[in-house]
């Protein structure tokens, strides 16, 4: 490799015993690792493993609760993104932070405009911007509006912005999740060039194989701890998965049930992308029977969320049909679908699942208000019964129904969101990443609850981006990619097979 010169193995930034807790939740528990000059250090880990927290600490968004960061061997305090930038550390977030209504030039120099005697010196900015783009060998006009660029090009603009402040450490959080294969190729070429210039890169990706092709060092996080750290030569895909997932934590097995008639039939369903171009769900067919548990595995942006939100009535399809118990739900509102027995547990519980201003009890009863309304008025006794039954059923640990929802841990909050939907006695429950951001114990409990309901005849569909969770309670595992189901497995498959099916064609 061309980068192997004298600077190899020089550590630029190292993390020593970094710990971070949010209230009672420990997101990071003493993480150590080094970033080497001119090399790519890749962070592997499942959702909730602590990757993004670690990145936020490195880039100054958050301060660690304990531990220290050494920059070139000297302890540094990174209190803000501005301080991080001054130290040469830049981060490119998964969600791009560009102003789409402004030009490439304005975005690159945002916040650090070059001032001339007559205000901003646009000509100089444009010249520097053009030089940067030439350096990146990208043909992007500095005067083009960012919103007119393709996503891959926007990523390049982010990189250009990071380079324009002479960053020598560049953190990339899931940079390829929205890119086409060709754009990924361009990005990887840029990464190689950056390495040659001595820029150190911290790379985060869910896409293991892709990430392996550019990694020089791998760091694996699991539940806030660093479980492994090794140079590229010593690792392979198996090693990563083993360290990411951990040794067989039991998330349950598929319940032995006889399937009933089809409960949910999705046929030829297409859902347009939120951005307006292309399809998030592409002519998809799916049948789920009563008592069956189906897991949908896929990378971010594969269309899982859109599929579920469309079935639940949050977004409307451009084509196709959703039938519940052989009845079309196309004309039904969300409330009517809940009454008919089709419910969704959304992916983002803070944004879509909980009402933070209400108590635990009122959150639990929110989806069944009609059931405890007698005439004009709500019946507090009937509500109390529903709440108590629900707290018991999903085993929420709380001081009582009157406790504020924010007093619960993430896992218990998730149980409230699930419990809220279960008390409506649905026939089909869709869960979008039900295990996101909750600890392994709560995860196991959520899966136990779902398996129990499936055994009683409920159809369960859950999505996940953690391959370990596919091989738990699901009878059937579907792999989704680009809005289509590309592979189907039964419970006796392997993690490797599922992962291989989800990946996109590898970069040459």
């Amino acid at each position: 490799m061309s980068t192997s010169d004298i600077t190899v193995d020089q550590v630029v930034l190292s993390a020593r015993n970094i710990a971070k807790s949010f209230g009672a939740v420990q997101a990071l528990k003493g993480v150590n690792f080094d970033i080497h000059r001119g090399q790519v250090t890749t962070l592997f880990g499942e959702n909730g493993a602590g990757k993004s927290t670690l990145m936020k600490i490195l880039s100054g968004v958050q301060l660690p609760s304990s531990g220290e960061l050494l920059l070139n061997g000297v302890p540094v305090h990174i209190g803000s993104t501005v301080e991080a930038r001054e130290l040469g550390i830049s981060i490119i977030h998964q969600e791009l932070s560009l102003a789409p209504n402004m030009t490439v030039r304005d975005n690159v120099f945002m916040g650090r405009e070059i001032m001339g005697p007559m205000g901003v010196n646009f000509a100089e900015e444009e010249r520097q911007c053009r030089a940067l783009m030439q350096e990146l060998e990208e043909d992007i006009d500095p005067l083009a509006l960012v919103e007119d660029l393709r996503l891959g090009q926007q990523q390049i603009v982010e990189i250009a912005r990071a380079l324009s402040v002479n960053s020598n450490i560049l953190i990339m959080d899931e940079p390829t999740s929205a890119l086409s294969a060709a754009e990924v190729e361009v990005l990887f070429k840029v990464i190689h060039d950056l390495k040659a210039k001595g820029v150190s890169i911290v790379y985060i990706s869910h896409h293991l194989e892709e990430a392996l092709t550019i990694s020089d060092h791998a760091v694996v996080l699991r539940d806030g701890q660093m479980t492994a750290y090794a140079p590229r030569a010593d690792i392979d895909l198996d090693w990563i998965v083993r360290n990411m997932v951990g040794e067989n934590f039991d998330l349950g097995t598929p319940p032995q049930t006889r399937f009933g008639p089809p409960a949910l039939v999705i046929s030829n369903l297409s859902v347009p992308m939120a951005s307006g171009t292309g399809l998030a769900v592409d002519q998809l067919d799916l049948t789920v029977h009563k008592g069956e548990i189906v897991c949908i595995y896929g990378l971010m942006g594969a269309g899982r969320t859109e599929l579920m939100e469309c079935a639940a009535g949050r977004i409307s399809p451009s084509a196709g049909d959703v039938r519940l118990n052989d009845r079309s739900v196309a004309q039904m509102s969300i409330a009517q679908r809940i009454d008919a027995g089709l419910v969704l547990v959304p992916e983002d519980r803070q944004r879509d699942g909980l009402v933070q201003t209400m108590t635990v009890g009122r959150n639990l009863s929110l989806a069944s208000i009609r059931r405890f309304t007698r005439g004009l008025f709500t019946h507090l006794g009937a509500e109390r019964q529903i709440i108590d039954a629900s707290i018991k059923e999903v085993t929420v640990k709380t001081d009582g129904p009157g406790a504020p929802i924010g007093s619960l841990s993430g896992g218990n909050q998730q149980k409230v969101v699930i419990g809220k939907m279960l008390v409506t006695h649905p026939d089909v429950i869709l869960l979008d990443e039900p295990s996101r951001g909750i600890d392994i114990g709560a995860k196991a409990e959520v899966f136990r609850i779902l398996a129990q309901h499936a055994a009683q005849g409920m159809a369960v569909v859950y999505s996940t981006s953690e391959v370990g969770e596919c091989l738990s309670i699901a009878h059937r595992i579907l792999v989704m990619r680009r809005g289509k189901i590309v592979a189907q497995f039964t419970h006796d498959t392997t993690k490797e097979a599922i992962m291989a099916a989800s990946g996109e064609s590898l970069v040459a």
Partner: protein
Amino acid sequence: MTDTTTSHSGAKPQRSFNIAQMLLEGRAFFALIAIILVFSYLSPNYATVSNFLIMSNHVAIFGLLAIGMLLVILNGGIDLSVGSVLGLTGVFSGYLMQGVQLEGAGVILYPPVWVVIVLTLALGAFVGFCNGVLIAWFKVPAFVATLGSLYVARGVALLMTNGLTYNNLSGDALLGNTGFDWLGFNRIAGVPVGVIVLVIVALLAAILLMRTAFGRWLYASGGNERAAELSGVPVKRVQITVYMLSGLCAAIAGLVLSSQLTSAGPTAGTTYELTAIAAVVVGGASMMGGRGTVQGTLLGAFVIGFLSDGLVIVGVSSYWQTVFTGAVIVLAVMLNSIQYGGKGARR
């Protein structure tokens, strides 16, 4: 009161925290007590039953607007049009009381008072409905939509009277439309009817919020609209309804005010929307939606009303009243953010 807190904090930190907490949560109530105590000390005329009733009659107008405003603010919105709707509905009722001339038939209809009241309330609800539809279906920000209807309603009121005031609202016994001034002048068991109307509306609103599905929908959609929607709450219908209820409250206030004054002027109620918002905020509601109570809002309305009337009684210049009211509002919002900021620590 401050002294008590500090002396305790020295000795028993745990207990003083609780007292501070209690003072914080019941702040509108304690503020009202403090206002009454201070003004009773400053003026012998303040703490008399008759003065309290007079002041309450003033508060009734703001209180009615504030209750409607509370519903809107609970939903996470704002209704700037209530002052104008108050003016418009007052003028409209005055217009009806003068008799409606049917050009084609050549007759003048004098609707009885109850018809006037029903039509006026319907007008208020209609303006609110327009606001709600603009906001819920056409996605116009609440601030802008209701700012627009603030102007439109005021303009229509001015057009209807050509800028003049309807002075004769007492009706004529021969025409069978007397009794309009009953709302503003009469007393039942010594209590002005306006105050009784306020109490009834407040009770209805409290029941609506605490004991009906609609109330729960309102708190939920104000707290987190997306979560409420996914839980089957008809968020758009809730949104439109709260603006209708706010318009309805403004119309009730318009009727009470024009009855109190026995005249209906097109400029009545100018800037009252701000007082109503202030009352809601002083009453501890969160401008972000989802938090607030009717009792709090009533307390807020009384704090503002008793404060400004008290300042008049002790002879403070009306300019200073404005300064004081402003200071109270800012203080209240500051305390609100302390209360909710501490609790709702987000993760």
